């Protein structure tokens, strides 16, 4: 509301307060140094937004979205292709001379932490250059009991000596960050090595995840408990104001190091057609401020986008037909006429219904148990779920590897699968399991969370499985109860979803690795020594055809054992306002706001 129009708000405000002269509530625009009006990027956050701005305490997409504007990671997903990584706080990509066990890092010169507060933590100065010790300190924080190890799983068992550091420090009242970790080898203030327990390729992906953002020790110690609201980072923006569940305002970091918009040749032909390469080579960030608004409900977010007040919006399912042709999925002409652009993003989702492999009825590895799970797979029609509940927008596929990743079957169809509906085969399998037409099979307890349309989804599932005589005892519970039931191995059959942490199928295949059993991420408690051996093999392999072949074997083994019914991935549809330039939303990472520009002349 920073227009130069007559202000109703001010007038009424004056009346309400009984005051004639007002400080302008929707006052004139601030003017940046140099005389131009500040460029402000207004963005939505769907839900209540970030809970914390301390990366080590963060876990949700929204924590990620906020943290990476202020903090940076050693590596970062590329804007031009989110599957690719590029160095951010590093001068170059890390190298290894011993097959991935020891990695060499060189920090980028000119990167500084920026503390915008009037009483900065760096001895009164607003900035301090980043150093090797900051990297080690930030990674050690993951192993600090104070933060309840919320994100330690990312590097558990990976770095030589870090597990021991964690175990030792767990007995201390406060973590001793000066205690050494043998895998952290300092060469100089700008060069260092990290030695892993074994070559783990995913380690590089971990270094691009926001929880491993680099923080300054002085800032953590200076701000203490308030550190999660007063971040001091190296990122393109600094926090001006953060009000939990309400709003987050960021301002441009005046000391941000040199980062440039991706060069023209990086962009695909399609991206170039969309003019995504337009500011190639220009220094970022482009905007002076970012203002996030949290939206718990879809309607206000939709209306704000419709009014031109936010740069982009996800298209909630109930609004899909207001923007797109349901059949062709193309943007409606009236939207196009307004200059609104559409983008879609296939998410790395693995949406499934899982079985507890330790359950006496649905679990186990015998032919009978397997046949029961296969029968349930064959009886279910995921396309009907997709059409009924998601306007046909989701993507149904075989196996646990989402589209776009190595090991994903062509067109989503594995060479051999039990994808339904195939009722004849389902009945046959059910009979093989010892339950002809479901006889002798007690209703299966199925846990799913309340909310959204899960009750209706449960009804459809009951109807589909009833066709072969399988009955479902639905347990609609709140999400935390669902997690508890699954983690305590009490749920024989449950509905869950996994969103990949990084674009490598290893992340999804880890969900079936025996040692990760509940309460770990292996919610199925799937334990097959052959599978575990393959997982241990691929964990240390860099991307290659050989690794992909093993991924496929693991995928097919899972399809055969059927510890889940699946799978489905969401396609996120976005609308972008005409005044938001270079904006192509992706959820693979959130550090791309610095590449977005605004053209105020195109605002309504």
């Amino acid at each position: 509301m920073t227009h130069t129009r007559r202000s109703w708000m001010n007038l009424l405000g004056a009346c309400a307060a009984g005051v004639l002269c007002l400080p302008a509530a929707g006052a004139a625009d601030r003017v940046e140094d140099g005389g131009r009006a500040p460029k402000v990027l207004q963005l939505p956050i769907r839900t209540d937004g970030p809970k914390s701005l301390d990366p080590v305490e963060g876990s949700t997409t929204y924590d990620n979205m906020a943290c990476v504007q202020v903090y940076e990671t050693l590596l970062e997903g590329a804007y031009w292709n989110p599957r690719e990584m590029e160095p951010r706080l590093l001068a170059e990509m890390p190298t290894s001379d011993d097959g991935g066990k020891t990695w060499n890092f060189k920090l980028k010169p000119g990167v500084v932490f920026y503390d915008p507060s009037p009483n900065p933590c760096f001895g009164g100065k607003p900035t301090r250059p980043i150093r090797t010790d900051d990297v080690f300190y930030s990674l050690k924080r993951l192993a600090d009991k104070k933060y309840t190890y919320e994100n330690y799983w990312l590097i558990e068992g990976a770095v030589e000596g870090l597990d021991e550091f964690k175990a030792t420090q767990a007995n201390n009242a406060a973590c001793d960050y000066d205690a050494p970790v043998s895998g952290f080898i300092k060469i100089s203030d700008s060069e260092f090595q990290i030695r892993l327990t074994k070559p783990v390729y995913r380690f590089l992906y971990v270094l691009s995840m926001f929880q491993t953002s680099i923080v300054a020790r002085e800032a953590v110690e200076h701000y203490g408990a308030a550190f999660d609201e007063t971040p001091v980072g190296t990122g393109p923006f600094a926090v001006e104001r953060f009000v939990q569940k309400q709003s987050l305002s960021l301002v441009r970091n005046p000391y941000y190091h040199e980062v440039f918009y991706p060069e023209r040749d990086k962009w695909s032909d399609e991206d170039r057609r969309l003019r995504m390469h337009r500011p190639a080579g220009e220094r970022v960030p482009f905007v002076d401020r970012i203002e996030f608004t949290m939206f718990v409900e879809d309607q206000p977010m939709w209306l704000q986008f419709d009014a031109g007040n936010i740069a982009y919006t996800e298209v909630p399912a109930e609004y899909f037909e207001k923007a797109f042709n349901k059949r062709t999925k193309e943007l409606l002409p009236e939207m196009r006429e307004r200059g609104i652009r559409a983008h879609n993003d296939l998410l790395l989702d693995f949406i499934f219904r899982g079985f507890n492999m330790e359950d006496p009825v649905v679990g186990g590895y015998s032919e009978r148990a397997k046949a029961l799970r296969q029968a349930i797979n064959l009886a279910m029609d995921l396309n009907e779920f997709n059409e009924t509940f998601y306007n046909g927008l989701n993507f149904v596929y075989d196996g646990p590897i989402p589209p776009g990743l190595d090991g994903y079957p062509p067109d989503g169809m594995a060479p051999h699968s039990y994808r339904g509906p195939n009722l004849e085969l389902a009945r046959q399998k059910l009979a093989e399991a010892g339950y002809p037409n479901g006889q002798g099979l007690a209703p299966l307890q199925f846990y799913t969370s309340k909310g959204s349309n899960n009750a209706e989804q449960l009804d459809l599932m009951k109807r589909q499985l009833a066709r072969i005589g399988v009955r479902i005892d639905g347990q609609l519970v709140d999400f935390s109860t669902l997690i508890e039931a699954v983690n305590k191995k009490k749920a024989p059959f449950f509905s869950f979803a996994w969103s990949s942490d990084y674009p490598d199928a290893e992340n999804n295949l880890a969900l079936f690795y025996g040692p990760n059993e509940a309460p770990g991420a292996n919610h199925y408690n799937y334990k097959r020594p052959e599978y575990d051996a393959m997982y241990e093999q691929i964990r240390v392999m860099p991307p290659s055809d050989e690794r992909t072949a093993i991924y496929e074997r693991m995928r097919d083994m899972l399809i055969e054992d059927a510890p889940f019914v699946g799978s489905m991935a969401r396609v996120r549809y976005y609308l972008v306002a005409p005044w938001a330039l270079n904006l192509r939303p992706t959820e693979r990472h959130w550090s791309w706001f610095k590449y977005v520009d605004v053209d105020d002349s195109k605002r309504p």
Partner: protein
Amino acid sequence: MWSFILRRLLYNIPVYLGIVLVVMLILRVNDPVYAALGKNPSVEEIQAKRESMGIDRPFVEQYGRFLKELVTLDFKRESWDLKIPVKQLLDRTILPSLLITVPTLVTSTILGIGIALVAAYFRGRAVDKTLMILAVLGMSVSYLVYVIVGQYFGAHLLNQSLAARDLDPLFATSGFDPALSDLGTWARQPARNAGMWITYCCLPVLIGVFVSVGYDTRFYRAVMVEETGRDYIVTARAKGAGNRRVMFIHMLKNAMIPVITRVMISLPFLLEGAIVVEVYFGIPGMGRTLIGAIEAKDFPVIETFTALLAGIFILSNILTDVLYALVDPRVRLS
């Protein structure tokens, strides 16, 4: 009167302790630790989380610690979800809720009583029937519908129409100015905050009033109609009191007992906030916070909010009795 208040307070202490006990016990039926864990937690990490949440301690200790917080009103426990002390959360959320609920209650009560008086005055006639039909219509539609429609027409379309006339938006579609939750800013810049209140809170209040006034009118009309048949009304008329005096002096004063009851019952809900409007309009009040806390199994917040609401409920009950005595000399506090 003071001995009455003191006695009532003492009587209610066991009730209050019981409420807090029951709330804490019910919450602990399910283990909250799993909702707060990261991915792939080990048994050791689960234990660390349990310790950090304080639920590894015996229940009696947890209960005692919380009672101490209640007695000292020092809610220093951290919200498990938001990682800030509950006291800070209360400070942030009480005012936004009150900015919606108090004007809603006051306006709808005044309007409700006013319309009820008019309806009672014209009892059985077209005016009365029309008002009651409107009240029933207002009551018949879900609050959620009013909020969704009100937001669309009252903010979005209205703003578009104003923009076409080169005027600023009147009501925000959603959002909240953080300065509104700061009493200091209200003291320093009342005009600015009043303007912001109109922008961000007025429409939710209008919607709330629209919803409440139907219920209030029906209730107060019934009260007023009942009063019109009382002997004191006949006496007043016999003594030559005019209609206006009978309605606004004699009848209104005597109808205050049910009015006080209804208003006082609403008091605890002022703090609870108007959950639906808070969610739709992005107002960071107590209702929205409490719902978020319930979803996240954030015990420190749920327990504190519930205990405070229970306390206010008990206090408002006592206050109701005191007010009865003040407005009706026949009532004696004993």
